[in-house]
């Protein structure tokens, strides 16, 4: 039996009249690498933002490991503006903050790198361990949590070692080359001890050699950390190489889904997306 880690049901997300995501249903099973592709502005990042609690969807629900974590229905101002069809299936309003969803085991990286710019490489990862603390502000201030602090530092060092960032650990994170900054974002996400990792264009700005390395790297961390991965990417060779399944979005709506072979042969996809100069 398949083990569903993430499931989106009829997710619509509107910004006023702009329908960024239109009735999107998709799922990711445990251990899979699933890609979300589509032209610029298709709504991919917005879908991630709905999963991670940054935006509340206008309609639909999201389940993580079978448990409902987000649900909404068109109400208030959105009642008039709502552009979708299935109105009435969802009746609850569940709107957690992003940190609560991260605590459940969903971690993400950002399309435009968002490291903590004044912090060292080491501290960027260490801070992401904060959410797994057992200390409170009193015990932490008076160093009654020394054992936990030591453990977190060791785990951070180990993580940096695995990701090949240990040699630069004391540098300020902004001094790293672009590729390593992206890698540090992945390290930081892993530090939160996720079950599901969401990568938003991890290969953006990388050359073919770096992209190839990244392909292996994502496969490796999936196995090493027993992760499930959902990834937004524009580099088609990376997507086709690594994905178990692919979802294709265009103007917010799902236009195709399937294995890499099926997607490559799908005429709608070719017309909407692969036909463009994107796969260069």
């Amino acid at each position, binding site marked *: 039996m398949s083990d569903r880690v993430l499931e989106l049901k009829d997710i619509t997300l509107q910004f006023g009249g702009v329908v960024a995501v239109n009735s999107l249903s998709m799922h990711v099973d445990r251990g899979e690498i699933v890609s979300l592709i589509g032209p610029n502005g298709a709504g991919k990042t917005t879908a991630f933002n709905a999963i991670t609690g940054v935006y509340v969807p206008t309609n639909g629900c999201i389940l993580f490991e079978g448990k409902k974590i987000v649900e909404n229905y068109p109400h208030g101002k959105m009642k008039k503006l709502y552009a979708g069809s299935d109105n009435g299936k969802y009746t609850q309003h569940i709107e957690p903050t992003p940190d609560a969803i991260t*605590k459940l085991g969903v971690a993400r990286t950002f399309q435009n790198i968002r490291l*903590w710019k*004044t*912090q060292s490489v080491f501290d960027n990862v260490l*801070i992401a361990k904060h959410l797994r603390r057992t200390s409170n502000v009193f015990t*932490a*201030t008076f160093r009654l949590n020394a054992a936990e602090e030591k453990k977190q530092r060791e785990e951070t060092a180990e993580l940096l070692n695995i990701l090949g960032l240990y040699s630069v650990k004391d540098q300020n994170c902004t001094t790293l080359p672009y590729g390593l900054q992206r890698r540090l974002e992945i390290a930081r996400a892993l530090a*939160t001890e996720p079950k599901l990792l969401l990568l938003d264009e991890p290969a953006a700005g990388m050359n073919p050699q770096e992209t190839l390395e990244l392909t292996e790297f994502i496969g490796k961390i999936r196995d090493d950390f027993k992760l499930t991965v959902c990834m937004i990417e524009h580099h088609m060779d990376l997507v086709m190489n690594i994905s178990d399944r692919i979802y294709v979005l265009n103007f917010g709506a799902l236009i195709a889904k399937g294995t890499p072979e099926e997607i490559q042969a799908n005429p709608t996809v070719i017309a909407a997306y692969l036909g463009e100069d994107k796969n260069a």
Partner: protein
Amino acid sequence: MDSNKKRDLAASVILIALLFLIITVLEQLLPKTSMIFTVLKKGSIYALVAVSMNLLNGFTGLFSLGQAGFMLLGAYTYGILTIPVSARAAVYQYYNGGIVQFALPVFAAILLAGVVAAFFAYLIGLPVLHLKSDYLAIATLGFAEIIRAIFQWDKIGALTNGSNLLRKFPIFHSTLFPFAVSAVCIGIIVLLINSTYGRAFKAIRDDEVAAEAMGINLAHHKRLAFTISSFFAGISGALLAMFQTTVQASQFKSAMTYEILLIVVIGGVGSITGSCISSFLFVACSEWWLRFLDNSDTFIGSIHLSMLRPGFRKVVFSVVIMAIVLLYQKGIMGDKEFSISKIREKLKKKKAEDE
């Protein structure tokens, strides 16, 4: 790295011990009324409130303008709770001796001064910290103004003595007292900043969206920083009451908050040592070094400096401040800390370059 940290810690301990020694010696040598004691006392009190403001503005990225209000709460809490029972009839002469008819020990009252300020901060933070951070500045500024008015209201005069002074509460005589209390409090703030919570505060300051995505509960952590910052502002308010020997709500104007903000900016937003250094410089300038400018009978040789008159000090002071802000846009220390090991490293580097 670790040995450097230990060395820095040892160096700061020695430095503080040395300071205490110097103050003790000075107190033996100089007359009690010497200006230097005023500067040291007030400077250490301002250092504490400046560091508490820096915890918020510099380390958590929240902008609050309520410092004077929280100091007022601290000062009043301390005053109300420590006036000896025998003196209450005289102090609360218009209010039948007031409603509080007991006196707490000094340290318990100082602690409660912090707790009361923190409690009000917590209440303000509940609705406001969910909003964008500019609202905190507006809300705290408004709070400080309102609280100042309320404390002068004669309907609650039995508690606050209305617009009359609170006086006759225990005060300190030695400069060591405010120094020690401030040093302990600043020490605790430094410990907090270097703990896992302090790191989370810095993450919120650097990038809120990323911090939240990495599981840091924004509302909770902002409320923590705000409450703790106000706790220490309350304690410094209690110390200020002791320093001034009297308390009156009308002293805690928003100008006081701006003075503290200025100290933080001059010292460097995000630098604890910067805030401490600039507190003493600020107080020394405004209370001592520029005093002669107010004296209209100053002569250089036989030339009468006719420009000098009462109030001229403030003009020069403003110019000095503007010059500092223009020349050192990031403050004296930027966001760096003063540390012996860093200076050693620099010297070593220089030596290596020279060879």
